């Protein structure tokens, strides 16, 4: 199908089984740093996202992990066009999201929805839960006739495990976990096919996190949704993801099946990240193989030359300072890893 044909089909997006639902190519987002009192000129740029590419298949969950400032949330926001990307393409069922006009963008927003991190900030405190969950239809009135909306809100609340009779209550009357359920219900209202979950359980209590994770899994099964699941908690990502992409300083450093990434990481950063995560098992304490990285993440306004990770990497040498490693499959691991010296850890081999 040619590009012209795709253009003509309007919102009838192309669908074919092997085509990924979402394909992101070379996504770049730089935030300009401006200085000056009257005339502001650009003195630099924070390279929040710097050339990120990945595919998302139908019904799949792609985990996006990394530490704060690695750009994972910026990826989410640019994909939602809440922030305009600096460069790159993102094809949703064949059409470039970044290239859509206002009308097409509104239509595509029905298909891609988002769940936010902070259940306290993501619900308007002046609106009832019913109005919050029903707002999508106010914005897209043709999706559901007015007469059916109230009933459907009740159904959605029930679906996410809330009492449908509580639609006249306000967000602050609910606990954090319940609010996050409201956020899930709102995201489901337009029957999307992709949901971007931006740290959806990070703000919740441990005992409540699992409830929301289960809920997300249930509705994925029920509606065949695809998720981009962004989190810094490695075990939650491990639990929910089919594939995982590890980000460091605006770039994906390693991507692959969740099992491969967790059992056979080849990038030193992934290895360090996995090794540093505290495990809820006192017998694993004082692990001699534990990697504790030195220093902090470099300033994204002034990233190091060559490989971004070389300032904290124990393998780094001249090559790493000179040449940026490409995200490509090496002899080991069987999945792409952006390291000149990608290899399995000796302890992982066993």
């Amino acid at each position, binding site marked *: 199908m040619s590009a012209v044909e795709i253009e003509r089909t309007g919102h009838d997006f192309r669908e074919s089984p092997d085509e990924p639902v979402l394909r992101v190519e070379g996504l770049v987002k730089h935030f300009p740093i401006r200085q000056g009192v009257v005339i502001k000129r650009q003195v630099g740029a924070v390279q929040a996202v710097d050339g990120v590419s990945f595919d998302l298949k139908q019904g799949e969950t792609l985990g996006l992990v990394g*530490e*704060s400032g690695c750009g994972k949330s910026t990826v989410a926001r640019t994909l939602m066009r809440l922030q305009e990307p600096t460069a790159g393409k993102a094809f949703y069922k064949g059409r470039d999201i970044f290239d859509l006009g206002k009308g097409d963008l509104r239509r595509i927003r029905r298909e891609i929805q988002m769940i936010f991190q902070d259940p306290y900030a993501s619900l308007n405190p002046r609106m009832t839960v019913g109005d919050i969950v029903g707002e999508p239809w106010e914005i897209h009135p043709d999706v559901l006739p007015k007469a059916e909306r109230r009933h459907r809100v009740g159904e959605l609340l029930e679906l996410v495990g809330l009492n449908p009779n509580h639609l006249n209550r306000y967000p602050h009357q609910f*606990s*954090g*976990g*319940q609010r996050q359920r409201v956020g899930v219900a709102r995201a489901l209202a337009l029957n999307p096919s992709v949901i971007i979950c931006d740290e959806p359980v990070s703000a919740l*209590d*441990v*005992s*409540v*996190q*699992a*409830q929301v*994770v*289960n809920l997300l*899994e249930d509705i994925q099964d029920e509606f065949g949704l695809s998720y981009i699941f962004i989190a*810094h908690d*490695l*075990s*939650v990502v*491990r*639990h*929910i993801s089919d594939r995982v992409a590890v980000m460091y300083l605006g770039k994906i450093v390693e991507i692959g099946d*969740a*099992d491969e990434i*967790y059992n056979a990481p080849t990038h030193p950063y992934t290895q*360090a*990240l*996995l090794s*540093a*995560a*505290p*495990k*809820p*098992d*006192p*017998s*694993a*304490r004082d692990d001699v193989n*534990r990697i*504790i*990285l*030195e*220093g*902090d*993440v470099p300033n994204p306004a002034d990233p190091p030359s060559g490989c971004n990770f070389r300032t904290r990497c124990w393998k780094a040498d001249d090559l790493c300072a000179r040449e940026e490693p490409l995200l490509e499959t090496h002899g080991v691991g069987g999945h792409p890893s952006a390291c000149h010296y990608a290899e399995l850890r000796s302890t992982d081999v066993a």
Partner: protein
Amino acid sequence: MSTTVATGPAEVAGHTTDPDAPLLEVTDLRVEFRMRHGTVVANDSVSYALEAGETLAILGESGSGKSVSAQAIMGIIDSPPGFIAGGSVRYRGVELLTMPEKQRRTIRANHIAMIFQDALTALNPVFSVGFQIAEMYRVHQGVSKKEATEKAIELLDRVKIPAARERIDHYPHEFSGGMRQRVMIAMALALNPAVLIADEPTTALDVTVQAQVMQLLKELQQDTGMGLILITHDLGVVAEVADRVSVMYAGRIVETGSIQDIYERPRHPYTLGLMESLPSMDSRGTRLEPIPGSPPDLQNRPTGCAFHPRCRMARPRCATDDPPLLTIEGAGRSSACHYHEEVHLERG
């Protein structure tokens, strides 16, 4: 292990200490917040003891009151609305709660120190970190300005801040999150306290930085022999550093025990539920087993056992009889569950 705590009786803020008493002992502490809409009991019959060189973790979710007893120890509860309604806090046998504020300040600076989750708000933004640390030496030890600065540099070096001598004149906002946490640790340790209370010290930090900071705390504890109270919600962090654990729920301690006991043989359904709700790092695994419901609002504490509405083991008795925290299986091991013998059977 060297220890900074004197072995014989010593003077603490004008009181004579008892060298045989626990380093820090909290007994039956009750803290109330008297709000517009009624009284919230944030801590009820909270008791624990800490020995030198030991790490005690207080594990709890938001609203469990896990930080409240620490604030009571430090004497920094907002009052009103907070009131200490009963109990005692003893430092080497010396009662702190009845002490006049002036003596409390001496204790706070020299014997018991605290670090917080958010280092940026805990440090004064208008003074350089060097000045803030040197100030502690000048005020409490009366050393000269130059000497105090030297000591501050030494201290920053000890918490592994690179190029401490150059960074001494930097302001808190010029440090990264992990470095700021180190600065706060340095300030807390400036006067060699015997007890360090760390309230969610790594929650705001990234995983790799978190590991650094926990490692640092562990090393410093080994060097100084201080007792560490670690307040956290993170079962992983607890598993890495704690010797003993007290699990809190709805303002009370529901289970105590050694780290192995708590993780391998939990004797309270809440502790068990917490463990089971955690996803595993090692395999994709099956469906998670969450604890249903939400932690209770302390203003509407359920009757009987506060956990019973969320407990899969609950029986009629649990809704009416409030289970006390009873010693089980010997010293240091206790559970507040009527059916604690059966908890391990639940483990699947």
